[in-house]
């Protein structure tokens, strides 16, 4: 055993100072949600361009019928971050970005709006919720990408415990239900049973585009459309998968310990 102690000690502290020190979140180079630049978006050589809407595998981008609020209707709650729209756009109106802090309280905040300020300011609902948070995770049919990132939360780099957030085995001890996956038909029953087993007050966070809207597997004979119509959702975090820092940011936002950074489908500072 002493050899292990020594191995650990010699490595020193490996935990990122983030979120208190910005820029140490470990996500250098991460490609997040594509950013929409409406001033560059338009018809190409006189033709109605809808290249991004055609290529989007989850129909996150659709054309608006009236152009009063921009040409495109972009729902980041459906985005699987595949970057195909960025590669396809002939005018550069969809640009790569490192925007991953996409946790929001209202589903509507994930939809792009011309005037982001028009989006309602998120209310502080967690007043009084200042102590440790216990989370029960349910995998409702994910691809294991989200689980891989959730498991990473307890590695020494992110070390979720230091923030007073813990995963718990029993739903009876949990404050928050964290759901991943599009909700497959066989998981619908166990998911509802887990929610029912939680003591009130209880909250739900949808992690990953699948849980928010169904994602890539949505529909068909065995996948539903995420948590919509299944459970009431308090925080939505799209991403495919959202990185561990994004999950931490969303959990801290839920606790009112970090601001919501996305309004009207884009990062506002």
């Amino acid at each position, binding site marked *: 055993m002493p*050899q*292990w*102690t020594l*191995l*650990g000690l010699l*490595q020193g502290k490996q935990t990122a100072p983030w979120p208190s020190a910005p820029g140490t979140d*470990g*996500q*250098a*180079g*991460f*490609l997040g949600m594509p950013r929409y630049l409406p001033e560059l978006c338009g018809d190409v050589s006189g033709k109605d361009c809808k290249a991004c809407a055609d*290529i989007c*595998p989850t129909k996150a981008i659709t054309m608006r019928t009236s152009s009063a609020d921009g040409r495109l209707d972009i729902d980041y709650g459906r985005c*699987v*971050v*595949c*970057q*195909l729209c960025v*590669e396809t756009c002939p005018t550069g109106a969809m640009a*790569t970005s490192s925007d991953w802090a996409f946790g929001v309280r209202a589903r509507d905040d994930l939809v792009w709006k011309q005037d982001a300020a028009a989006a309602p300011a998120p209310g502080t609902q967690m007043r009084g919720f200042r102590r440790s948070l216990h989370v*029960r*995770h349910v*995998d*409702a*049919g*994910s*691809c*294991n*990408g989200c*689980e*891989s*990132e*959730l498991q*990473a939360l307890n*590695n*020494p780099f*992110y070390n979720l415990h230091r923030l007073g957030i813990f*995963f718990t*085995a029993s739903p009876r001890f949990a404050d928050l239900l964290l759901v991943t*996956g599009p909700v*497959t*038909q*066989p*998981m*619908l*029953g*166990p*998911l509802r*049973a887990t929610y029912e087993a939680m003591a009130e007050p209880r909250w739900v966070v949808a992690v990953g585009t699948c849980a928010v809207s169904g*994602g*890539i*597997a949505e529909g*068909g*004979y*065995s*996948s*539903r459309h995420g948590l919509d119509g299944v459970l009431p959702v308090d925080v939505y975090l799209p991403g*495919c*998968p959202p990185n561990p820092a994004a999950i931490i940011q969303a959990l801290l936002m839920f606790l009112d310990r970090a601001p919501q950074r996305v309004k009207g489908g884009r990062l506002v500072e």
Partner: protein
Amino acid sequence: MQMAYAWYREVRRLELRYVASVPDQVPFTVWRCDADDAVPSLANTWPLLGWYEREITDLFGLRFVDHPQPQRLVLHEGANPPCPPFDPDYPADLPLRVETTTQAIPELAGDQSDVQLLPFGPVRADVMESAEFLFFYLGEAILHYHPRLFFKHRGMEKRFEGLEPECGVVLAERVSGVGSVAHALAYCQAVEAAGNCSVPPRARFLRVLLAEMERLYNHLHYFGHLCHTTTLKVGEAEGKLLEERAKQLNTRLTGSRFLRSMLAVGGLRRDLAPKPWLAAEFDALGEQFAKYARHMENTASHLDRLITTGKLDRRLAFDQGATGPVDRASGLDRDLRRDHPYAAYAELPVQVAVREAGDAHARAQVRMAEVEASIALIKCAIDLLPDGPVRADGAVAPNSEGLGWAETPRGTLFYAVHVGPDGKLARVKIKSPSFSNWRVFPFTVHDSNMMDYAINEASFGLTIAGCDR
């Protein structure tokens, strides 16, 4: 024998396909069989076919005569579709109604007054994928173990149907998150085989680089998890920390922690610049891992829990279709990268690690050797990386088909792609490594004990998403 699947050759003409590897022959052999009515089950001859036949029965409604285990597999007992989901009469996008039921299991014989049943799952402790496990136990001893999977069955194979072949890559990347590269690679290779498209050399080498980087972060995760089950706390932290470093390298290179959005039919979506920085990073990671591995191999408390745990005999591994590090730890010297080379593996030195013991320790040792071999391959691929384009054009002809494969971190993965008369995907069959290894795993749990269960499960390195699809 590798796998079996069904597809509609013509309207309402079902055909069965059996894919087999023949010794000393590089191409796979494919056997076909029309299946308009019930066909004889081959599960008594090739036990590994048992699950494939049950899957075909559930999804296509084809009956196999004299099947040794004629129960449901992919669809649970509580699912009552109007007709099988892959039947042309199944209404598009009709959600399957599933009632939560208990699993139909064979009755126990003999005196059972002391035997207890522990149902565990599908929502399990901590952050875990969903599956239900039934343990029949007597005190500490497990008499019989029955996993019930496919809670996570998303119907992914059906989602491919009707897509343009180029558009399937994004879907393939999301069949199994920790196998994104392998799935996209096998899929692309299947479409490229259908379209007779040849991939430029630079793209082939970069594909190897991506596939080996995927193997690396998966194996590092494996050791962190294995140490967790043997309660080696610093070992757990170290394994997970190394995994995190590998994932951050993935991000620096590709922008994705899972190396997604890189592969495309015909090559890669964009070029990568691994020179000059990446090789040095892997040198440092390799050194750190060597130290970590040495510590694990010198810790008696860790080894005591692994040696003789979950022993899988060579014969059983072969008959039941074990794959990847699991079958190589039971003395089977098989690796698609060497035996059926794809991408640029034929031009690179592929070292295949084999152990004979078949226990949890052997499975860990195989992966240890594979981490080192992967780092060597990565450095070699960066070194030999040719210049040139990374994507070739190629059109897929209507009514064509192709088979693609990859040796994932967990074993063999196959994609069989059939293109319809309209040039769109008509059928895509995915054979994931975990589908094979979940079939084998229970044989090592029967007649074992509760204390060893978690260690044994970790030593197999299974995922559920890939198996359930």
